Structure formats: C-alpha cells, structure tokens
C-alpha cells in the first residue's frame, strides 16, 4: 500500500522544515518527504493536499483515560478514538486511575487495552504514579514500571506536599532517567477552593484558590529539579508567577519544562458565569492579566508545549452544584483546533511553532518516538493532515470521547484535523469529502 500526500505544506519542526511538497507513506512507514519527491504512478492513493498542512502526528503529554476504575467517564478505547479524532498519534495517560497506575502489571493492562482492536490506533505512553496508590509517602517501584513501559512518573491528582519525599523521588527518577511530571499545588493554600480567588469568586460566594497555591509548588519543584538534576515537567501553568518561576529555573540551568492547557490560554474566570461546572478545573481559570502573560510566554518559548489535560466526566457528575462538581474538562478533540484558532490565527505562534507545541516539543521532552516527519525516525508513520482555514463549530454531540464536559461547546473554530495516520489511516473527518482525493486503488497482488 502506497499513499501519497500531494502538494501540502509540510511542517516539520524537528528539522525546521516548512515547505510545500509531497509525503509518501508506504506499508505503514513514512519513506519520503520533501518538495522534490515525485508523485509516482504506482501509488494506491493520492490525496490532494493543496492548502493543507502535513504535520507530524500530535503528542498529548497529559490525558486522563479514566480506565481502570472510571469507565463511565472514559475508556481506553473511547479515549484513544477521541485522541485520533483530535489529531494525536501519541498520548500520555495519567496515573490517577482507580486503582492507581503504580505497578508493572497495571501498565501491561493499559498497553494491552491500547493495542486492542477497538482502540483508536494511537500510541499510549503510560505515566506511572510516583507513590504507591498515590499515598504521597511510599515511592512506587519506578524501575519495574519503566521496564513495563512508562515514559514518565507523576504525582498527578495526588500532589506530593512533603518536599523531602519529592526530593527522594526525583533522585530515584534521575537515576532511572525518567522525567517527572509534577502537579504543582499547595493543598493547604488551595483547601476547599473551587475556582480562582478573585473578583468572580467574591461575587459568586465560591471559595477561591490563590495563585500562590500554584506558584509556591512550581517554585519548589523547580528548585528540587535544579538541586537533584532530575528532569521535571511542570504540568498546567496558569499564572504569570508560575511562568516566571519556570523562566528563572531554565535560566539557572535546571532541566525544567512546562505545558499549558488550551482552556488556560483562552478562557478566564469570567467563563464560570453563573456557576457553570463545565468551567471548573484545577488549577483554575485565572484572570485576563494571567492569560495575556501566558500568551507572551507561549510566544517566547518559556511554555514548551500544549497539553489537552483531557479530563472527561459523565453528564450526571456535572449536573450538580458548582462546589460539588468534579474538576476538569474534556479536551482531546478541541485542543488542536483551539490552538489553531487562538494562537496561530491570532498571530501568537507561527504555523511551524504551532506544530512544535503540539507535537515535536512534547515528544522531545518525554523522549517519545514521535514528533517528526523524517523518514524512518519513528516506528511507524505518524502524520496529521490539517485544513488550517476550515471554519466549524465544536459540538460535543459529535465527539468520540464519553466526556461531554467541554468548555468549548458551540465555539467557532478555525482549523481542523482532516486525516490522521498512525501506521495506517486511523481517522478521517466526515467533512473531508472524497472529492478532494483521487483514489486509484489498485490491489496489489
């Protein structure tokens, strides 16, 4: 089987490539790429990519697949299908499931489920829990989990408060060459909080989390990275202070990176409106000033990558009073399009930098075989085809995720994922009409 993506804008940040050309995928492998690659007559499928972007498959460092334990919110099958529809070919799944991802057997379970025929066909890179059961006290057998396939360790969902334990965990992970993804939240400062501490929380009579609850732990985690030498990835920065801490840590030479979720660069606390639980997340949606400075930090590179922080919930779980609702938003199927709409089309990021934040950077941070279009650099071809100009409205009723708790329901978006290859074709948008492609299917004998 030979597929040719013809005359698209090839965006490959791994080699700073931004040219119009052709891409040849043959038998699950990306074999040729570039402006001078000929459109061979023997191709099975030729797809006219005029006006489209050809990018390395997106990489999402921060996804909650909910399985095992909360299959009513999401399963590995539904979550990976959602990932494919969102343009992702590799996703990292967070360890705060029930039970927690804290041993090699459960990592095997995740990888088996991800490879099952009903799954979405994307690579799932599990993230192991730093502590057993997320108890924040006893460090899990990270070496055994690394052998089983984890790409990082994290205290997601159970932020480690004790600096001594975090420091020990970082020493162990440094030894194992395992990046640590940290959930930076001082639980004593954020206690009882359900949104940002600000004018909105004061008006609504809701308990607010101060920015310091995030910033103090970002600072601690940066310093522990600096002193242990362990690679640390700060998940979800939401305040200018947190970004400044990361900037300083990088300046001092710490191996620190950070990510931002789309809702945090385009929504503010105002979105909570009249107690809408779809806008409840942690760290919370912040103020306009924070968003403006986060956009600057995205542009100047202090924020390394975009992560969906996909946190699906069942409908009944969010039909409750705001303070009783769970934290988190579904995001896999909107993340890329919101990034195109809010960052690329508004001139914050160039097309090449957009793809860097969505693919090459997170792949590099977590040392994943992804994030590049260079032939034979990844085990199988990982390619996402995008129409950057297509205008559409996001509709949760048409998503693959079980979680319909999106803050972007009805949002007008510009830029859409049309096709995704991860080895074979794993997703094709319904709007991507066959008239755009010239199919010359010749079954080879």
């Amino acid at each position, binding site marked *: 089987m030979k597929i040719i993506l013809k005359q698209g804008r090839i965006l490959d940040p791994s080699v700073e490539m931004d040219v119009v050309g052709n891409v040849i995928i043959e038998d699950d492998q990306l074999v040729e790429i570039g402006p001078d690659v000929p459109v061979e007559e023997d191709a099975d499928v030729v797809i006219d990519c005029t006006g489209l972007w050809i990018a390395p498959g997106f990489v999402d460092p921060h996804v909650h697949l909910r399985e095992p334990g909360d299959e009513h919110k999401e399963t590995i099958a539904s979550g990976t299908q959602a990932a494919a529809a969102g343009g992702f070919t590799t996703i990292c799944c967070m360890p705060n499931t029930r039970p927690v991802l804290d041993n090699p057997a459960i990592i095997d379970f995740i990888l088996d489920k991800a490879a099952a025929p009903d799954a979405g066909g994307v690579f799932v890179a599990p993230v192991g829990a730093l502590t057993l059961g997320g108890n924040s006290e006893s460090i899990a057998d990270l070496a055994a989990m690394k052998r089983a396939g984890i790409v990082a360790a994290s205290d997601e969902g159970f932020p480690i408060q004790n600096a001594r334990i975090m420091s020990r965990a970082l020493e162990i992970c440094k030894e194992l060459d395992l990046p640590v993804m940290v959930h930076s939240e001082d639980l004593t400062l954020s206690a009882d909080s359900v949104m940002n*501490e600000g004018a909105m929380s*004061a008006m*609504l009579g*809701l*308990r607010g989390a101060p920015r310091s609850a995030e910033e103090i732990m970002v600072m601690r985690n940066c310093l522990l990275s600096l002193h242990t030498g362990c690679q640390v990835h700060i998940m979800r920065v939401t305040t200018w202070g947190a970004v400044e801490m990361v900037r300083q840590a990088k300046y001092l030479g710490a191996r620190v990176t950070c990510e931002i979720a789309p809702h945090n660069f385009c929504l503010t606390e105002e979105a909570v409106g*009249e107690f809408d639980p779809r806008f409840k997340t942690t760290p919370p949606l912040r103020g306009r000033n924070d968003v403006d400075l986060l956009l600057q930090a995205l542009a100047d590179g202090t924020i390394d990558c975009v992560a969906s922080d996909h946190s699906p919930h069942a409908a009944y779980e969010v039909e409750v009073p705001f303070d009783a609702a769970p934290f988190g938003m579904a995001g896999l199927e909107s993340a890329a399009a919101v990034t195109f709409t809010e960052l690329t089309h508004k001139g914050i990021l160039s097309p090449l930098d957009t793809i860097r934040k969505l693919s090459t950077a997170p792949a590099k941070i977590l040392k994943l075989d992804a994030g590049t279009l260079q032939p034979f650099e990844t085990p199988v071809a990982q390619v996402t085809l995008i129409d950057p100009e297509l205008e559409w409205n996001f509709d949760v009723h048409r998503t693959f995720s079980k979680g319909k708790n999106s803050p972007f329901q009805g949002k007008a978006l510009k830029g859409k994922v049309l096709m995704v290859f991860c080895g074979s074709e794993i997703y094709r948008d319904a709007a991507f009409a066959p008239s755009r492609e010239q199919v010359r299917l010749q079954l080879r004998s």
Partner: protein
Amino acid sequence: MSRTLLSIRHLEVPEIESLLQLSKEHKDRVLNGMPPAPAASRTIGLLFFENSTRTRVSFEQAANYSGYRVSNFIAEASSLSKGETLKDTIRTLRSERLDAVVIRHKSSGSAQLAAQFFGGPVINAGDGEHEHPTQALADALTILEHKGRLDGLKVAIVGDVLHSRVARSNAWLLEKMGADVRLVGPPNLLPAETGKLPGEFYQSLLPALQDADVVMCLRLQKERMMEGLLASVGQYRRGYQVNRETLMVAKDDCIVMHPGPLNRGVELDDFAADGPHSVIGEQVENGIYVRMAALSWVFGESLAPVKAKAAKVNA
C-alpha cells in the same frame, strides 16, 4: 406568569420596588386582621438541606397567612440525606405537583440549579455564601419603615463579609436602590478582590460607621477561628464590635440590625442589641411579610388581592 427569586444581583430596581410594595401591603392586611386571600390550593415545598429554624418558620408563617399549604422536606428526615442528587430531588418534587419550591442549601448557586430542574417558581432561602434575597428584602422593608427611603442612606455592613450571603444580598439591594454601602471587617474576612461586588470596602470600623444611618452586623461563625482567619474573639470584639462606644460616630438616630442568630458580646453588645437603636425584632417580623410578597410575586399574582377582590364584587 411565574417567576423565580434566586438573587438580588439579578433583580431590576422596579422588581425590588414592587416586592417591597407588595410586602407593605401584605403587612397591612395581616396587621388589620384581614383574612387570608382565598386559598389558591397551592402547595409550597420547603426544602431545607441546611438547618434553619428561623427562616423555615418565617416561610411557614408567610404561607399560613397567605393561605398556601406547606410541605416540609428536612434533610435528615428524607431522601435528601440518602445520596440522591439535587436534580433527582427537585424532579421528584415537580412530579409530586408542588407549585413552588423554597430552597436552602449549603452550595452557592444551588437555588439556580434547582430552578433549572424545577421549571417553576423557586425562591432562594440562602445558597451557600452567595445570596439570601428574602433576608435583604426584610432588612430593606425595616429600613424603609424607619427612614422612609433607601436612596442616599449611609449603610455600614460589619463583620464576616467574605462568607456572608446576607452581606452580598443586602449590598446589592441597597446599592441598586441608591444607598451609600460600606462593607467593613477584618482583612481576612473581606474578599481578596472586590471589583465585582457593590459598595465601598473598609478595613477599620469607625470610618465605616461615620454618620451611618444604618448599621448591619453579620453573624460571626465560630469555625472561622478554626480556619485561622481570625486570631481571637477578643481581637474581633476590640476591632469590629458594634457597641455603645463605636455607635457614637454613627448618626444619633441610626438603626442597628442583625440577621441572627446573635453572638451577643461578639458582633454587638447589649446596648446595640437591646437599646434604642435596635430593630432586630422588627427584621424578624418583616421577614414574614416579605416572604408573603415573595410567594405571591413568584406566582405572578397581582398586587393587593384585597382591593382586587373588592373590585370584582363591584363589577
């Protein structure tokens, strides 16, 4: 047309005026011994997820005077404590053919959610730390009776503003009606950002009480000390107690209010609570009339049912 009464923040000035006018008329009728309006055979569900004898009894009295029947749902005694969601509880009450729901709940925004699922008249009897609209109406009626107006009055609201639904509802109502609203309390008990709240914020008591026409005390919850938001009761008393001395800077004819229950000797002293300035008892009584008004208002009943009846007879 039925309505909801969920917050003061969302009311227009004419709506507040008509609620206060209705309250006055209900009060006149009750005090003149007029019989309740012919029972409209309506049943009101009193849904109290949080204990509140005072507000519940006030709504019961309001319903009695207006000729409505009441069904009480108290959290400990019903399925409310059996893990049922608010949505399912409210839907059940709708199926039970209740005509209106009065809800008290610990979560801010819960009354609005209840209204969404009930689809008919809902009155907020206190939602978390958000609003308590009928308390603010009772306080406004009391002020009107003493001062004849709200516009231009200097009103100090004193105490734990951060956690107080009474403070929010009162501040919204008084500011909308043209009063000069001053909110004062210890820094830890004031919101960190106040840009979306009405009124001026003060951190010391005397400037806020200066020339005040009305002084409203807020109840100080004991748990605030456990949370470390308050160093000691003594410190609060010395800094923020409304008493014989601190009232000296207010107007001579100022009135002192408190939504109850009182922590006597903490928020206010005996002089403030029982002396010539106190109108605390009137606030409680006026609570009945504004809740009568709230009920007739949410049912979309017209003003002055007595006159309407007379007109009908003449016709």
